[in-house]
């Protein structure tokens, strides 16, 4: 239904842009910007220095991604569209490193406790978009039977996870080994999308040396990457709150790779692959950048925008086109979870009256009735919204995409959800 548009970037070599003049590290984790700052203006920092620590019920460290001097601590635009505190660091191009632990050569020497400790120290978090620290998922893993690695990446245009898996297949399986051991899981399943032949060929050889790990190829449909939908398709089972109810632990593939990389090097995540795609860029490709690099710098480095951008016809998106957010400036820092930026030229779509065709109902992966929810939102009928289970909406954007009348159904679905949650 949704055209993947992966071909725009997934065949091209990964560009590197890892020496920015300045980086701005955002102090934000999920919806919290409650951070205790450990540095001040003028401090010398290295790659891996802890700059700040989230100080409410979760402890999430923020690391420096370059070595250099702190220039400022200031409010800047953030990819979440809210102004957020950033620590701006000037790069001295020395690449001095501060490790949180010694590099590990032989992974089998690590005990379960050591792996869990490294999960906490490395600050590795869900790179699929949740930003939830992985050690949170490892609080209670007694019941876990299966580790599910989600390498589906179903959002159109984005290929950064795919590129990461292709180039770091060894680290991926190292990570699967570590995470399976830490959860004492008996089985690992790596889910990727059908039709990505090169990726499958790169991963297939490892399946033999890791007998407990199985590669599953999933249908290329949106939103296969949604945990709940993926598990429903794989196991024919559904859960209420978390996959742990079914004995499954679900982790994004890039998270696994970055954790293994971090254990191997003793450094936290400071670099990542970001997809820059869409007709608005002169060159569309995957770029390896430091966390905190400004988008404008990256775009300039790969060739800038096409001419039409700037005539109010283009749109800049953080993330994929279905779940991503529309952003109004490219003076933004790449965060640890940024998987891509899209610059799309607007295609003309005019809203027309709803014909009640029910396409949104047929396509909703959560089994909801978006058009009925939209009606109930209009009537401010919270009781009806509860009957419709509006709080189960994940905002995947499919209802808007399939609507033949081009109505923005997702917008009212998300409002419906917040109305139910508020009561």
């Amino acid at each position: 239904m949704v055209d993947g548009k992966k071909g725009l970037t997934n065949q091209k070599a990964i560009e590197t842009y890892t020496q920015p003049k300045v980086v701005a590290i955002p102090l934000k984790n999920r919806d919290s910007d409650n951070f205790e700052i450990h540095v001040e203006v003028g401090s010398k920092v290295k790659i891996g220095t802890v700059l700040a620590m989230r100080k409410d019920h979760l402890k999430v460290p923020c690391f420096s991604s370059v070595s250099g001097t702190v220039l400022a601590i200031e409010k800047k635009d953030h990819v979440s569209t809210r102004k957020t505190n950033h620590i701006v660091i000037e790069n001295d191009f020395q690449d001095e490193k501060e490790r949180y632990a010694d590099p590990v050569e032989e992974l089998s020497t690590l005990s379960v406790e050591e792996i869990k400790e490294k999960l906490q120290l490395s600050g590795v978090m869900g790179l699929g978009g949740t930003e939830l620290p992985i050690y949170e998922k490892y609080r209670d893993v007694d019941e876990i039977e299966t580790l599910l690695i989600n390498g589906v990446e179903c959002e159109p245009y984005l290929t950064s996870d795919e590129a990461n898996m292709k180039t770091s297949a060894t680290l991926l399986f190292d990570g699967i080994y570590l995470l399976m051991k830490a959860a004492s899981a008996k089985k690992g399943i790596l889910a990727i999308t059908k039709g990505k032949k090169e990726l499958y060929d790169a991963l297939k050889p490892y399946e033999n040396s890791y007998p407990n790990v199985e590669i599953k190829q999933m249908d290329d449909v949106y939103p296969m990457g949604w945990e709940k939908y993926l598990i429903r398709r794989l196991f024919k089972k559904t859960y209420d709150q978390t996959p742990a109810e079914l004995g499954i632990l679900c982790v994004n593939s890039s998270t696994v790779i970055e954790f293994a990389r971090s254990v191997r090097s003793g450094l936290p995540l400071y670099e990542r692959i970001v997809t820059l795609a869409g007709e608005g860029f002169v060159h569309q490709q995957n770029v390896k950048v430091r966390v905190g690099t400004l988008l404008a710098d990256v775009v300039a480095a790969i060739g800038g925008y096409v001419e039409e951008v700037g005539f109010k016809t283009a749109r800049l998106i953080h993330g994929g086109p279905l779940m991503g957010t529309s952003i109004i400036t490219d003076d933004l820092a790449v965060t640890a979870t940024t998987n891509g930026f899209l610059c799309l030229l607007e295609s003309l779509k005019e809203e027309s009256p709803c014909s009640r065709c029910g396409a949104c109902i047929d396509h909703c992966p959560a089994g909801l009735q978006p058009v009925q929810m939209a009606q109930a939102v209009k009537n401010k009928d919270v009781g009806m919204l509860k009957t419709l289970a509006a709080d189960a909406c994940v905002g995947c954007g499919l209802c808007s995409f399939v609507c033949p009348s081009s109505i923005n159904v997702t917008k009212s679905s998300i409002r419906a959800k917040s109305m139910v949650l508020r009561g």
Partner: protein
Amino acid sequence: MNFPLKQQGTHMSINTGKSISRNTEILNVVTHALLFVAAWAVFNRHQVFGLAVALHGVLILFTAVTSAVMAHMLFYLFFDWVDKKEFPSFKVQLQSVMKRTWSGTPIVTALILGLAVHPGIALYVIGITVFFAEILAKLLFGGYGQNIFNPVAFGLVFILLAFGATEMMAGHLPDAVTAATPLVGLSQVNWMMDSQEIQRFMTDQGGFLNMLLGLVPGSFGETARLASLLALAYMIYKKVLDWAIPLFYLGTIFVITLVYGFSIGAGWWYPFVHLLTGGIVYGSIFMITDPVTSPINRQGKAIFAILLAMFTLLIRLNTPHPEGVAFAILLMNMFVPFIDAKTANVTLVDTHKKITSVGITFVVALVVVIGFTSLIHFFG
């Protein structure tokens, strides 16, 4: 660099590589399907009644379409004037009016209604009917998407109530056209027939195949049953139509009439007498599938179709009206908000409950039709 703030969802920017919207695509497919049925119907009328009636059929469709477009334009022009809406020039206003007109799908409604009427109907009758159907059943509610009654069913009932049976016919056509249709004959005997009468009826009509092809007297386009079924297959293939409504409707009618047929000793062919006369097949494909006036999810659609079949048969078997489809549609249109409210839930859970609810509706429909009809016959 700064980018403009956009309120719409980000998916709006995905370039799908299509020059027309999905809505236009759907309308095009439905219009093509209807034109195919129309061409078949015109050919049929030529075979049965001759060239004059065939040409008259073309004029009926032309009048219907013109009248529907005029109804929209005049309505919007009048209310622009009443609301004192200001436009920079008359040309801009006309553009705005035409845009609203096309979004109201006048051509599809007009074609469906034009094909459902008698082939010998006077042109002024179809013109007035389409005009009032568009205004009363569609525009007064706020246009396409807001109406609760099916405009086509409304138009058919309007013809029945507003014009006498003989005066609405065009005078210049051969008498054979205005002669009673097979449906009226069946209705006069309350659809009571034994297997021999069915055989005789079928032979009179030129056999099963003739009735399927539509080479029989009857409504203009409703007789082109095979063409309608082919159009249905095309529309399902193009994914512009949900198969649930036609399937449940035709299936329910088939099963109920089969049971009823055996109860009166009419045998295996009795369901086909119902399916191959009147507008059941045509209506199931082009009238009751109107998304605006039918329930929105599949469970609701199934219940809607089954109850619609129940009302169609109740009207056919127990009232002096030969045809039940249009009345049944208007009746069921009133149930739609209720059905929508009662089927408002998560579509993925409680599948058993949903199938059970559809099954119960089916049993109710079966019992009501057979029981009610038998009671009437017992006391009458």
